[in-house]
C-alpha cells in the first residue's frame, strides 16, 4: 500500500476493482488499486486517456461503486452508504469540479453556488454563496445565468459551488480541459488558493504535466493500475 502521508488519510482505497459494460464489451477499468491520501494534501492523478483516472475520481466521489474493495472518505466507508445517504454525504464532504462545468442552466450563478448549501440545510446559503463568488472574482456576475458567462467564468462558478460547503475533499476532473491556457491558469490558481485557505484535500485529474507538478504528490495510472506514485 502506498502511503505518503503521515496524517490520518482523507481518502483510503483498498483492493479496488471495477469493470464496466457487459459480455464482449466488458472492460476491466480499475485493477487492484490501493491508495491512501492524507488529509490536506494535493494529489495529481495523471496517465494516458483510458487509463482510468476519471473513473478512479468517480469512485472516490461515491459516484461509481467498485466491484471489489473498500473506499473510505473522511473516515466514512462509502460502500456502507446507500444511494441517498451517499448523496447527502457528498453534499457535505466532497466538492467536485467537472471539465464541462455542469452548471444548472436555469439558475443564476448565485443560485448555482447556493444549491449544495440549501440541500445541506446551511444557514444563510445566499450570503455564503455571494462570498464564495466574490472570492473567485465574480461579485458583479452573481445574477447572470450560465449562458451569459464565459467558459472561464462558468468554471469559476463551478469552483465556488464546489468549495461553498467547505468540503473535506475537493475533486477536480480536468478542470482546465475546456479552457484556454490563460483562463486555465487562473482557475488552477483559484483551485489551489481555495485548497490552501481551507486545508481541503485536493485531488486533480489532468493531462497537463505542469499542472500536476503543482501538486505535492503525483499518482500515475496506466491501464487501470497505479504505475507510479511519488512527489512532484
Amino acid at each position: 500500500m502506498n502511503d505518503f502521508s503521515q496524517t490520518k488519510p482523507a481518502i483510503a482505497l483498498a483492493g479496488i476493482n471495477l469493470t464496466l459494460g457487459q459480455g464482449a464489451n466488458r472492460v476491466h477499468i480499475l485493477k487492484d488499486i490501493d491508495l491512501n491520501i492524507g488529509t490536506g494534501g494535493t494529489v495529481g492523478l495523471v496517465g494516458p486517456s483510458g487509463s482510468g483516472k476519471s473513473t478512479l475520481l468517480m469512485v472516490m466521489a461515491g459516484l461509481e461503486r467498485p466491484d471489489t474493495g473498500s473506499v473510505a472518505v473522511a473516515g466514512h466507508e462509502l460502500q456502507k452508504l446507500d444511494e441517498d445517504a451517499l448523496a447527502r454525504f457528498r453534499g457535505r464532504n466532497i466538492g467536485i469540479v467537472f471539465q464541462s462545468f455542469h452548471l444548472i442552466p436555469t439558475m443564476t450563478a448565485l443560485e448555482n453556488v447556493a444549491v449544495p448549501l440549501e440541500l445541506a440545510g446551511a444557514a444563510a446559503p445566499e450570503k455564503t454563496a455571494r462570498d464564495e463568488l466574490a472570492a473567485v472574482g465574480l461579485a458583479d456576475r452573481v445574477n447572470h445565468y450560465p449562458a451569459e458567462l464565459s467558459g472561464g467564468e462558468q468554471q469559476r462558478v463551478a469552483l465556488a459551488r464546489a468549495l461553498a460547503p467547505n468540503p473535506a475533499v475537493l475533486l477536480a476532473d480536468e478542470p482546465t480541459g475546456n479552457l484556454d491556457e490563460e483562463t486555465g491558469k487562473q482557475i488552477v490558481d483559484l483551485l489551489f488558493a481555495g485548497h490552501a485557505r481551507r486545508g481541503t484535500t485536493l485531488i486533480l485529474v489532468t493531462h497537463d504535466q505542469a499542472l500536476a507538478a503543482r501538486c505535492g504528490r503525483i499518482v500515475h495510472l496506466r491501464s487501470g493500475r497505479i504505475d507510479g506514485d511519488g512527489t512532484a
Partner: protein
Amino acid sequence: MSVALPARGSSIAMRFAFRELRGGLRGFYVFIACIALGVMAIAGIGSVAGSLAEGLARQGQVILGGDLSFTLVQREATAQEMTFLKRRGEVSTAATMRAMARTADGRTALVELKAVDSNYPLFGRIELTPGDSLPDALAMRDGVYGAVADPTLMTRLDLKPGARVTIGSATLEIRAALTNEPDKLAGGIGFGPRLLTSEAALRATGLLQPGSLVHWHYRLKLPADDTTDNAANTVASAARAQLPQAGWDIRTRRNATPRLERDVERFTEFLTIVGLTALLVGGVGVGNAVKGHLDRKRETIATFKALGADGARVFSIYLVQILAMALIGSAIGIAIGAALPYVIAALFGAMIPLPIDPSFHPGELALALLYGLLTAVAFALWPLGRAQDIPAGALFRDTVAPAPRGPRRIYMAGTMLAIAALAALAVALAYDRRVAAIYVGVAVAVFVLLRLVAAALMLIARHAPRARSTALRMAVANIHRPSALTPTVVLSLGLGIALLVTVIEIDGTLRKQFTAALPEKAPSFYFLDIPSDQAARFDTFVRQRAPDAIYEEVPMLRGRIVSANGVAAENINPSADAAWVLQSDRGITYANDVPRGSRLVEGQWWKPGYDGPPLVSFEKRIADGLHLKLGDPITVNVLGRNITARIANLRLVDWQSLGINFVMVFSPNSFRGAPHTHLATLAYPGGGTPAQEGAMIKAVAGAFPMVTTVRVKEALDAIGSLISNLVLAIDGASAITLLAAALVLGGALAAGHQHRVYDAVILKTLGATRAMLLAAYGLEYLLLGVATAFFGVVSGSLAAWLIVTDLMHLRFSWLPMPALIAAGGAIIVTIGLGLIGTFAALGRKPAAVLRNL
C-alpha cells in the same frame, strides 16, 4: 413563456422546481394542451348541463304552465276533483291529443292538437304573428272557431291566416302563426306540429269519444300570498291523500320536466365519459412529456445528486414541476369550460329548444380540476419515479445508465392509487354506475391491450426475416430497437382509431336505424283512436284498399302503474332501462293469445274465455328492471279506476319489429265494459310506396275523420332528426378526444425527432441517400399505422357493438366502409406527421450536427 417564482420561505423543492422552470415551458406544451383539453371537455359539459338544469328549474312555472299540474288521461276531472283544485288557486284547463288536419282540397297532416280555456296561459307569454290576443284568435267568428298553428304546419299545408282546416267533424279557421308557446316543453317530443284552439272547438270536433287518447292538464296557480315550494308540495300531498283514486300525474314547478331532466342527466353522463376519454388519451401525452422532460434533465438531476440531493428530493422537485404544469393546463381548461355555457347561449341560444341559463358552476369546475390533477399524477408518477434512480455518475458517461426498468414499488403503488381514485370518482358520480363501471373496465383493458399489441409488434419485428431492401430493413429495425416510438405511437394512434371507429359505427347504426331501411315487416302506418263501434267498418275499409297488406288491430287503453308488488310507484327503485314505464301513462291492451312479435319465456298464457281474477302478462326485461316476478300483483289506474292483476307470465318483445306490442297485456276480462278505442297497423309487403301511402292517408282522413294516422316514416324522421342533433353533440365531444390523440401522437413523434436527426446524419455520412431515408421512415410509420389501425378497427367495432346492443338495446349493423376510411385517414395522418419531422432531419448539414454530438 416564463414562470413566476414562489415566495421566499417555500420549501427547497418548490424553490428549485420553479428556478428550473425559468427556462420556460418548452417540452410541456403537449402536456399542458392534453390536460387543458380533457379538463375543458369535462368542465364544459358539466357547466352546460348545470346551466340547462338551472334553466329548467328557474323556468319551471312557465314550462309546466302553473305552480302545479295535474294530468289525467282519457278522462276529464270530476266535479269533486275540480272543486278540490279551484279551492286552492286559479285553474287553467288544457287538453292535448293527436289528430289529423285536412284542408278543403284533401291535403292532410298529423297535428298535436291542444285545446285551452280562457285562463291559458297562467304563466309566460303566447306570441302570435299577426296579432297579440289569444282569446281573439280562438274566438268563434261567423260560426267558425279560430285556431293558431305552428309555422311548420302552415308551411306544410300551405296555409295563410284566414285559411280553414277540418279536425274531426269541425272546421277551424287559422288566424295566426304560433311563434311562442311557453309550456311547449312539458309535452315532450311531438310527432306533428302544434295546432292550438279553444276547448269549445275541441268539443265540436267530436274527437272526445270514450277511450280517445286525450290528456287533460289542469294547471294551478297558487294564491299570491303563498307561492312557496312548500305550499305547492302541500297541495300535491293533499291531492294524493284526498283523491287517491284519481290516478293523475301530479307535477310541481320544481319537477316540471322530470323525464327531460333525466335525459339531460343521462346524456351529460355519456358526454362526460367521452370527456374522460379525452383526458385519458391526454394522459398518455402527459406520460410521454414527463419522460421526455426527465430525459432532457438527466444531466441536471445528476448534478443535483452530485451536489447532495437525495432521490426523494429530486423526485419532489420534479413532482412540484409536474403539478404546476397540471395546474396551468387545468386552469386553461376550466376557464374555457366555464365560459362554454355563455358562448353556447350567445351563439346557439335561439336554436336550442331548451332554456339554457348560463351560470358559473364551481362544483363542476372543481370536479374537472380534480380529474385533471388525478390524471396528471396517474400518468406522471411512473416516469417520475425513475428520476429518483438516475445516478450521479451520469455526469461522466452515458453508458452508466442502467437498462430501463420500472420505478420503485412506492411509485407503482402511487400510480395504481391514482388510477383507482380516477375510476372510483368516475363510477361514484355516474348516473348509471353499471355503465360507468363497464367504461372503466374497458378503458383499462384497452390500455393493457395496446401495450400488448406494441410488445407483440416489437417482438415480430425483432424476429422478422432479414429483408433485402435496405429501407425495409431499417424500418423494421426502427420498430423494435431500444427507445423505439412503437409503444407511444401504438397507444395514441390505437386509442384514436378505436374511438373514431366506435363513434362512426354508433352514428351509422343510429342513422340507419331511424332514417334508412325499415325492418322488412315494419308497418307503414299506425291508426290511433279508432272508435270501438267503427272498428269493424275500419277493418273492412282498409283491407279493401290494401288487400295484400298485413293489417293488425288491437284494443287499446291508457293506464298508469300505481303500485307493483305492494310498493307505490314513486317508491320503486327501477333500473335505468325500466324507469320509463313508471314515468307516465302507458298503452295497455288485452288479448286471448300471445301477441305477435313477442315470445313467452316464463309462466303460462291464460286459457281462452278465462274468467278468474285479472291476470297480466309482463315484458321480461321491464319486469326484471322493476324487480317483479311471476305471481306479483300490479295495480294500474285506468280511467280513474284502480285495477289489480297478478303477473301470470313473462314475455320477451322484439320492439324493433315496430309491430304492435305492449309492456302489459291483460286477460280480456280485466277491462270488461271499459270504454276504449282500437289501435291498428298496416304493413305493405316490401314496404309501401309514397303513392300508396299518400292515397291511404287521404282515404282514411276522408272516411274516418276521428282516426289519427301516423306515418311511420315521418315519425322515424322526427326521431332521426333528434338523433342527428344528439350525435352532433357526441361528435363534438369525440372531436376533442381525437384532437388529444393527435396531440399525443404529434408529441411522441416530435420527441423522437432528436434521435431521427442523429440517425439521419450518421447514415448520410455513411452514404445513405435522402430518398432511401425517406422510404425507410415512411415504411416504418406505414407498418406501425397499418398494424395499429387493424387493432383500432376491431376494438372500436367491438366497443360500438357492445354499446349499441347492450346499452341501447338496438340491432347493430357493422359498416365496413366508414371504419376503413377512418383507419386509412389515421394512417395517412401518422405518416404525414412522421415525415414532417423527417424532412427537417434530412435537411440538416451533417458537419454541424456531428460537431455537437
